[in-house]
């Protein structure tokens, strides 16, 4: 569809489905989802063994060998997460194991700091739940019906309490409280939008039957929206983030991969050099 097609990714376009159990499709959706063209090719696919042998003793990675394997036969599903960390530039192939451990430690800490910042503003962050209903009005008044989800969230946006009633109710409670910063209001206004999209992301996959996994995707996007105030959250980002949340078990690792991916995408679209 030319340019128009670039604006819209439909469910079939991200071919996520393969033999890896991470991508297992719910039985009722088999047939709805297009099959992957990926095939394991012995001697071509980057296998776990080949991957491990591409590192030197102190951890330098021969990225050339790895890339040529990937180009010829793809990556074995069992190592896709760690491979993406290098492909997206989270780690420098020329670094050592020790360098990377230190860097990862710092990244974990930084993620923890941002998580705590967000938690102070909205307690749902990091609680294993997520939000699908507005928590704040456009003018920054909290909406009482805290709609954190953790249970049955199959239908997005069930009941909402009248916002006018609530703002009246909260006027008293908030008397004397300084108004929220605009950046905080803007961030809070995106939280339910992220939730609405999270429950619609790759939902044919068994992975997202788990509330914890839905919350993981929501949290990564919510924290990203806080640290990148210019982009915040934009529909479509949940689709980009989802494979990383599936492939990287640790939430902070998934976050940093997504952060790198966003940085690269922004650079590609704005033709700026990628700054490390």
């Amino acid at each position, binding site marked *: 569809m030319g340019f128009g097609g670039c604006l819209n990714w439909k469910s079939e376009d991200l071919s996520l489905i393969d033999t890896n159990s991470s991508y297992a499709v719910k039985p009722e959706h088999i047939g709805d989802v297009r099959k992957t063209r990926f095939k394991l090719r012995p001697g071509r696919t980057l296998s776990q063994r080949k991957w491990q042998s591409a590192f030197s003793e102190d951890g330098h990675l021969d990225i050339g060998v790895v890339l040529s394997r990937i180009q010829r036969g793809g990556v074995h599903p069992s190592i896709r997460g760690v491979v993406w960390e290098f492909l997206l530039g989270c780690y420098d192939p020329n670094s050592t194991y020790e360098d990377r451990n230190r860097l990862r430690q710092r990244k974990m800490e930084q993620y923890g700091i941002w998580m705590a910042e967000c938690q102070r503003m909205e307690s749902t962050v990091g609680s294993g739940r997520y939000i699908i209903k507005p928590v704040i009005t456009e003018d920054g008044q909290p909406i009482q019906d805290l709609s954190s989800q953790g249970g049955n969230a199959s239908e997005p946006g069930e*009941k909402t*309490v009248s*916002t006018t009633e609530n703002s009246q109710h909260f006027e008293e409670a908030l008397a004397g409280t300084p108004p929220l910063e605009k950046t905080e209001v803007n961030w809070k206004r995106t939280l339910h*939008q992220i939730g*609405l999209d999270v429950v619609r992301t790759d*939902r044919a996959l068994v992975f997202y039957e788990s509330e914890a996994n839905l919350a993981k995707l929501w949290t990564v996007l919510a924290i990203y929206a806080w640290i990148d105030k210019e982009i915040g959250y934009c529909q*479509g980002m949940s689709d980009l983030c989802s494979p990383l949340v599936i492939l990287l078990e640790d939430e902070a690792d998934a976050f940093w991969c997504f952060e790198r991916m966003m940085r690269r995408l922004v650079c590609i679209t704005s033709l700026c050099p990628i700054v490390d």
Partner: protein
Amino acid sequence: MSISRRRTLLKVVILGDSGVGKTSLMNQYVHNKFSQQYKATIGADFVTKEIQMEDRLVTLQIWDTAGQERFQSLGVAFYRGADCCVLVYDVNVLKSFDTLDNWHDEFLKQANPVDPSSFPFILLGNKVDIDGGNSRVVSEKKAKEWCLSRGNIPYFETSAKEAYNVDAAFLCVAKTALANEHDQDIYFQNIPEAVSETEQRGGGCAC
């Protein structure tokens, strides 16, 4: 046979908050199926459907748009040349009803039709199937009052999931858009007649 086998292209734009079921409604109407698979719509997308109305073959070009507020800035490009605007809200989500004013006004502002006061809108209250109607927070009466206050906009309660009232609603969309097109013809006699495709498909009537 009648000689006036005119082919007409009508552009229809679907607007409303995120998650109210715009994509589902469109696909239920065009492909007669409901899927749990839809993702959030990014930017906009369109599909076409041909229907026979009296002696005319009408091609509906239905534009499905993203519900996230920030995509509204793309409106000028997507709304221009529309013959009808379908507003959708979720009867179970009050906010999606409250924002109708905003969608309505923003559409007129950006589409900039010749006569904003008579531009055809249609309102759909979707997801009436949920919880047997027990979770709905916007009554039919309230919705109809809004429609009346906005120049008597036609109103339909729909369920894209159960294919309830979807065909009837879009038939009304086609009729309304067609009527509007007649009006415009008076002022724009020399605007070319839609796109002409040689192939002619039979049937497809939604009546």
